[in-house]
């Protein structure tokens, strides 16, 4: 790792004052499960690293039935999945956190870091830039090794997939992400937080260079049943190949309205409004769940090696719906 200056502020005001206005010159350190790898691989070379773990107000998790759940940005994946309220009211979040099958990573990795982790695209990690292009600007992904790349939202120039396991569930639950910068706090809908970059200089989220994520605000479910289903290559230690998070308002077995968001298939978590409309008004059955999965992937465009992901995304939707309908919350 290259040398850097280390700061460990105790307030969020101090933290954002230490960030500057150029991406990569300063970086925020939470659990470090992603940032330190990026620095070792020279993908980012900050002159200053700001450890935010000493900021007390970014820790902790509170729930009230009237306002919902507040998750501090520094809550670890382990704390999230062990929380009784989360398991009962928001099983989709607990299931997503549980999918990160490493106790070592769940104990240090934070929810803020999960949302802001950088794509795992091997070209990006190998130093070819966020958009994975050669020196002439041509995509390395299209004719290269693309079996883990996007099947949706992949008209370019970005082909990576958003790596966050929590993001689809947060969007399906209608969460907001609270950001803090020199001008104070602002809230962004989780669905608006992720953006598809057009250049290598941009980032794939709506943070400004001198802002941090301070907390996630998840509204009460109003009885909506929610679930996440991830398809992985193996049960252990890997990012999902495809995932779906759903939140279903139901009356009996009948779905009155649905939110369905795919993960790991597009440069941003991918809501599928056509599938949501298809499911609304129907009674959940295996066939209906399967057909909803079909509706979710109608716009998919396979690259040379990743056609299998279309089927995985379809299955993820089907199983997430069945899991939500069976489960409680």
């Amino acid at each position: 790792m290259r040398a850097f200056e280390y700061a460990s502020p105790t307030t969020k005001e101090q933290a954002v004052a230490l960030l500057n206005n150029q991406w990569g010159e300063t970086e925020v350190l939470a659990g470090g499960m992603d940032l330190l790898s990026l620095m070792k691989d020279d993908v980012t070379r900050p002159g200053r690293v700001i450890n935010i773990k000493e900021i007390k107000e970014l820790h902790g998790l509170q729930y009230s039935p009237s306002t919902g759940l507040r998750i501090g940005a520094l809550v670890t994946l382990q704390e999230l999945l062990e929380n009784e309220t989360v398991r009962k009211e928001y099983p989709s979040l607990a299931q997503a956190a549980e999918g990160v099958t490493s106790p070592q990573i769940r104990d240090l990795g934070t929810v803020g870091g999960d949302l802001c982790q950088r794509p795992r695209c091997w070209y990006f990690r190998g130093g070819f830039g966020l958009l994975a292009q050669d020196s002439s600007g041509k995509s390395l992904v299209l004719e290269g090794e693309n079996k883990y790349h996007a099947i949706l939202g992949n008209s370019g120039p970005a082909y990576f997939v958003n790596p966050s396991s929590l993001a689809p569930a947060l969007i399906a639950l209608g969460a907001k992400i609270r950001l803090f910068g020199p001008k104070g706090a602002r809230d962004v809908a989780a669905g608006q937080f992720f953006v598809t970059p057009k250049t290598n200089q941009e980032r794939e989220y709506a943070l400004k260079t001198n802002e941090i994520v301070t907390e996630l605000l998840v509204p009460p479910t109003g009885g909506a049943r929610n679930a996440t289903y991830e398809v992985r290559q193996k049960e252990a230690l890997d990012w999902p190949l495809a995932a779906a998070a759903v939140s279903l308002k139901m009356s009996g077995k009948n779905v009155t309205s649905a939110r369905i968001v795919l993960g790991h298939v597009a440069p941003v978590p991918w809501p599928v409004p056509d599938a949501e409309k298809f499911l609304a008004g129907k009674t959940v059955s295996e066939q209906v769940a399967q057909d909803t999965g079909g509706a979710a992937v109608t716009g998919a465009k396979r690259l040379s090696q990743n056609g299998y992901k279309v089927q995985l995304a379809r299955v993820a939707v089907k199983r997430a719906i069945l899991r939500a309908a069976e489960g409680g919350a």
Partner: protein
Amino acid sequence: MPGKMRVETTVNGEAVEFLCEPRQSLLECLRDILSLTGTKEGCNDGNCGACTVIMDGRIVTSCLVLGVEAEGSQITTIEGIAGAGRLHPIQQAFLEGAALQCGICTPGFIVAAKALLDENPNPSEHEIRLWLANNLCRCTGYDKIVRAVQSAAAI
């Protein structure tokens, strides 16, 4: 060039103090500064678990923790697992069950397994395998490792 920082921490029950650069990982600090070379480096990016140590009661991959982040914490490494003159039951079980070949993964497995058994003295085979999911072994095929943890749990 940013200078060295002073870190005060507790390793295997002993208060220690060392100087390190912010860019040095806890793994490097343990091995290169404190000469505790039992903790191993495999991948250096969080994937293999060879560098697993216990920090404030939780297992962490020390290659993804900065040495300066250890300030004020309690760390247990493989050197702190055995009792005075006596192997820990997990170490004994690894030895007797031949749960290692080249051995580079072994300290990480033993530290991770100890944290598991401290919390859950009677884990199922599936729980053991899931808990050890972030610890890779290229030699043994895992079976003997899982058996060793089971037999240590039975003691």
